[in-house]
C-alpha cells in the first residue's frame, strides 16, 4: 500500500452504538407521546413498556419517598429494575441512554472539532478549563436531604435532563434555554454537567461501584504505545490506564466510568474492551511502574509489571 495514501478511518463502533441507543430512547419517548406507537409511554423520569413493565428513575423515586412518604408500589418495581441494572452494569444509563448525555456528547465532539480547526489555523482558541470533580456527591446528598427536610423533590423539578425531556417530548420549551446555556458553557468546561454537577450520575456511580461490567484492560497488549489517547478522549476525565500502571488491575476501577467506550474507540492497539471482567486482581503484589517495560511486554507471556520491576 502506498505510504502516502490516507489511513482508512477506524470505525468508532462504541460511539456509534451508544449514540444510537440514546437516540433511540429519545425517539421512543417522542413516538410514545405522539401516540404513534402504543407499547412505549413515558418521560425521562418514568417510562412504561407494553403498558406493564415500568421503569422509574431510582433517584426520582428516592426523592419522592423522602418528600412525600407513601407511594404506589409500582414505582419500586420500576426503580428496582434500574437499580439492579446499575448494580450489574454500572452507570451505563449515563453513557448509553441519558438524552442529556447524548446532546452533551454531540456538543463535545463538535467543540473538539472546532477547537482542532482553530488550532490548525494557528489561532488561539477558547480557553479550556478542567471541570471540578467530586461535587456530584455533595449535590446528591443535598438533593436527598432537601427532599427529606423541605418535602420537595428539588432535582426532579430543576433537572436539565427533565428540561430536555419536557421540551422534546411534551413541547414545554422553556427549559431548553437552560440547556443552550449549558451547551455553550461546556465549550469551555467540557462535560461540566456530567462530571461536576449531575446528582443522578453520582447516584448511578455509587450503585455501580462494584459492578462486574467494566472496561477491561488487556494485560498482554497494554503498554505498547503509551499514547494516552484514552485519557484525552474520556468524557469523564478519568486517567484510563492509571489503575493498570500503578496497581496492575485489569480493568478501570474509577466509579465515574460510564462504560461509554470512547477510550476503546480511540485505542490504536485494542487494549481496551467492554466486558464482565469485574474489578480484577492485581497482576503482582509489587507495585511497579509500567513505563520502563515497553519492550519487554511485547514478548509473550511476560508480564509488563514483572519486567518493569526487574528493570529492563
Amino acid at each position, binding site marked *: 500500500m502506498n505510504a502516502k495514501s490516507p489511513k482508512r478511518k477506524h470505525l468508532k463502533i462504541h460511539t456509534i452504538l451508544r449514540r444510537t441507543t440514546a437516540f433511540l430512547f429519545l425517539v421512543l419517548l417522542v413516538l410514545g407521546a405522539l401516540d404513534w406507537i402504543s407499547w412505549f409511554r413515558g418521560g425521562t423520569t418514568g417510562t412504561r413498556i407494553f403498558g406493564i413493565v415500568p421503569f*422509574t428513575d431510582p433517584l*426520582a423515586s428516592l426523592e*419522592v419517598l423522602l418528600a412525600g412518604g407513601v407511594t404506589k408500589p409500582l*414505582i419500586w418495581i420500576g426503580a428496582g429494575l434500574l437499580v439492579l441494572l446499575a448494580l450489574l452494569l454500572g452507570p451505563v444509563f449515563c453513557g448509553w441512554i441519558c438524552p442529556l448525555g447524548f446532546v452533551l456528547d454531540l456538543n463535545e465532539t463538535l467543540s473538539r472539532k472546532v477547537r482542532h480547526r482553530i488550532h490548525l489555523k494557528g489561532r488561539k482558541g477558547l480557553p479550556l478549563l478542567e471541570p471540578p470533580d467530586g461535587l456530584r456527591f*455533595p449535590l446528591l446528598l443535598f438533593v436527598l436531604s432537601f427532599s427529606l427536610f423541605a418535602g*420537595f*423533590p428539588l432535582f426532579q*423539578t430543576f433537572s436539565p435532563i427533565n428540561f430536555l425531556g*419536557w421540551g422534546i417530548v411534551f413541547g414545554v420549551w422553556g427549559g431548553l434555554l437552560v440547556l443552550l446555556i449549558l451547551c455553550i458553557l461546556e465549550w469551555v468546561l467540557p462535560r461540566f454537567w456530567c462530571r461536576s454537577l449531575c446528582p443522578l450520575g453520582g447516584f448511578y456511580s455509587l450503585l455501580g461501584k462494584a459492578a462486574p461490567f467494566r472496561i477491561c484492560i488487556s494485560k498482554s497488549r497494554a503498554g505498547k504505545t503509551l499514547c494516552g489517547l484514552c485519557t484525552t478522549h474520556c468524557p469523564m476525565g478519568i486517567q484510563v490506564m492509571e489503575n493498570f500502571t500503578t496497581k496492575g488491575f485489569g480493568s478501570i476501577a474509577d466509579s465515574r466510568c460510564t462504560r461509554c467506550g470512547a477510550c476503546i474507540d480511540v485505542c490504536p492497539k485494542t487494549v481496551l474492551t467492554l466486558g464482565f471482567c469485574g474489578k480484577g486482581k492485581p497482576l503482582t503484589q509489587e507495585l511497579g511502574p509500567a513505563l520502563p517495560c515497553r519492550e519487554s511486554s511485547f514478548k509473550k507471556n511476560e508480564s509488563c509489571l514483572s519486567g518493569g520491576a526487574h528493570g529492563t
Partner: protein
Amino acid sequence: MNISRRKFLGGCGLLLGGSSGFISSLLSGSGPVALRPPGAREGKEFLATCIRCGQCVEACPYDSLKLFGLGGGLAMGTPHVEARKVPCYLCTNEDELKCIGACPSGALEPVEDRSKVRMGTAVINHKTCFAFNGVTCRVCWRVCPFQGTALVYDKRMRPTIDPKACVGCGICEEACITEKSSIVVRPANSNEGVG
C-alpha cells in the same frame, strides 16, 4: 474525592439550612394554584409525590392535561388542566380514569367513582352570566356531567352550584358562551374558601 470530609459535610449543612427552610416556607405559604388531574393529592403533597414523568399527560385521551413550563415555578413539569381550553372529560368513554392508572408514583390516587373526583369547585360570576342578567341560557347545565346534582337550575332559571357535588371538571367553564367564561373552576388547592 478531593474535598475533605469536613468541608463536604459543612458545605452540605450550609446549603441545606439556607435554602430548604426558605423553599419550604414558600411551599406552605401558597402552593401553585392550578387545576390538577382527577385524584391528585392536596397541593404541597402533590408536588412532593409527582415524579414529573408526564405519563398522565400521554394517557389522557382528550389531551386535557398539560405540563407546566418555566412559568409554573416550583410546579414545573407537573400536570394541570386549562379548563377553558380543554376541560377534563372524566374519561366518560373509557373504563377508568386513564391518568390515575398511568401514574407510577401515587401522586394521583384512585377514586371510587367519578362523582368522588374533587379537582375544584365551579364558581359563577353573577355579573356576566346571561341567566343572571335576564337571558335564558342553559349551556352549562346541559354539558354538566352531574346535571341536577352538581349544577341545578332554580325557579328563575338561574344556575347554582352545589359545592358538595361539583367535581371541578371544568366542562361548564369551557362551554360558557360569554367571552370570558362566567363559570370558572376554582382549583381544590387554592387557599381561598373552597366548598
